[in-house]
């Protein structure tokens, strides 16, 4: 664990990504203490530029942008964490079942992965929102479904690599049950690559959530999400460019931070996974 950390710290981009990511997670966690009420309307102070009172200015209702962006970070982090957790666990379960189970189990799982994989993420998410209806909970479910096959495929490939490893056969000779072999010996040995994929998925998830919210399909007003901030800013772009500027900056910074961190994490855990998208 500490070696992974020091490995990330030694790479300059990894260190940069890690610091930024920690800063974003920290400001998300402590948003209510760092900034004021994100929903306090002050119509006499609309479209204000940055000032000591409003560090990032105000939006079309005079709400403090700094506070809204920090609270937007909360939503982005919550969605990213929830999506990654769901996709990671579901993908691992299905991938391990496909890799370790009989053909009758493997086939339908692979077909499911292929179906989910064949749609472009955002288009697929749009279609599902149309069915399930907008809202953050649905966004979490939908985005988790679209990224789950990434985990599932990696998990299956890793299991196939291990399936006939002597140490698993040795466990069988000792009398270990299949459940014991899977949970104690297979999953710990495929966890590295899956954690790497989780790290790499976070920026993608942040972007999809912002995209859906921008389209009005994710976070609903007055909830502050980077996507809705961009949308509102875009609507009143002629009055003030600050909302779009700050929200866009924040989204870009977060994506960059988590991408750099994810790549450093991958290099630290398993450089062989380096792949071109």
């Amino acid at each position, binding site marked *: 664990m500490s070696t992974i950390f020091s490995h990330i710290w030694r790479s300059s981009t990894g260190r940069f990504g890690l610091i930024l990511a920690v800063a974003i997670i920290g400001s998300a966690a402590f948003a209510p203490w760092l900034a004021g009420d994100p929903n306090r309307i002050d119509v006499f102070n609309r479209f204000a530029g940055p000032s000591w009172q409003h560090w990032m200015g105000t939006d079309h209702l005079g709400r403090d942008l700094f506070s809204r962006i920090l609270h937007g970070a909360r939503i982005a982090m919550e969605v990213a964490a929830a999506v990654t957790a769901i996709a990671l666990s579901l993908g691992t379960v299905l991938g391990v079942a496909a890799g370790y189970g009989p053909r009758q189990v493997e086939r339908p799982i692979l077909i499911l992965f292929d179906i989910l994989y064949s749609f472009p993420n955002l288009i697929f998410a749009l279609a599902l929102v149309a069915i399930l209806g907008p809202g953050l909970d649905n966004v979490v479910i939908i985005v988790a479904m679209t990224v789950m096959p990434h985990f599932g495929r990696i998990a299956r490939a890793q299991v196939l690599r291990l399936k006939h*490893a*002597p*140490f698993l*056969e*040795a*466990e*069988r*000779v*000792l*009398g*270990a*049950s299949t459940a*014991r072999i899977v949970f*104690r*010996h297979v999953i*710990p*040995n495929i966890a590295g690559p899956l954690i790497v994929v989780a790290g790499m998925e976070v920026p993608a998830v942040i972007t999809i959530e912002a995209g859906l919210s921008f389209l009005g399909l994710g976070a609903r007003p007055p909830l502050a999400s980077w996507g809705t901030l961009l949308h509102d800013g875009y609507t009143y772009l002629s009055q003030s460019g600050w909302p779009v500027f700050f929200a866009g900056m924040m989204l870009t910074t977060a994506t960059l931070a988590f991408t750099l961190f994810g790549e450093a994490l991958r290099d630290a855990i398993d450089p062989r996974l380096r792949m071109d998208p």
Partner: protein
Amino acid sequence: MPLPLVAIRNLSVVFPGPLRAVDDVSLDIAAGETLGVVGESGSGKSTLAKTIVDLHRPTSGQVMFEGQSSQAFDRLWFRRQAQLVFQDAASSLSPRLTVRQLLEEPLRIHGLAIGEHWAGVRGLLGAIGLPAQVLDKYPHQVSGGQARRIAIARALVLKPRLLIADEPTAGLDVSIQGDLLNLLRGLQQSFGLTYLIVSHNLNVIRRVTDRVAVMYLGKLVEIGSTKSLFSRPAHPYAAALIAAGPVIDPLRRRPRIVLRGEIPSPLRPPPGCRFHTRCHFVRDRCRVEVPPMARIAEGHETACHFPFVASSEEGSDAAPLGAGV
């Protein structure tokens, strides 16, 4: 004759292909003996070993333990009777567990209290010559010889009666090989073990076994006491195998047989005697008729239509075999 510990009857293991890895093999392993299995790569010896511990299902025939079919008994009970030490010992140790956890693993699987049994495991470590410091290491941090000792220790935690060792000395320095063979012999005495030792190293087989089975392309071609088989091999393949090994007594003369060509593909084994494509003494009958196992001397059987049968001259020549080894 007492009941053998393991009785293998007409065992065949066929993999998709179809690849007959083990083909109609019958043999007994008596309690307390050391049986060696020799043969080239692809002869089916490792598959035989893995089938005995139920890693491969027999396609036909059966493996019986104390007269009971391996399909019939309780899984965990059977695991406490027979254990296997893998050829690649280092990679048979789960990489994320410490040596301590690896040695606790059999106890946990069998629901045995670790506190109660740990003293026994520590004693085992001493007997095997593993220092206590290895307990907190991971498999990749120990040497090849230590990995093999750890694998042996783990196999013995459950106090099995049969220990199968697949190429126990592969990949070890010659000096460490000797230590390991002495260790196996010592463990046999202290734990009353029965051994099945699979190897292509004839020196190892000759040194530690009581009896030897020779396999070729999935078939058992000869079985007999180590002494009898090494001095009077009856099957041309066994004779060639032994002739290829280093000669311990330079005054002894043996027929020098050099095998031509490669072992045929087990996907398309030759008809008749499997060995006829490489045999110097092949006759027409060998190409069509599969030779059955036949007794040629007390406790010595071979599957050959025209075995070398010891003349009295050769017999006297070969007598003092055990002395040099």
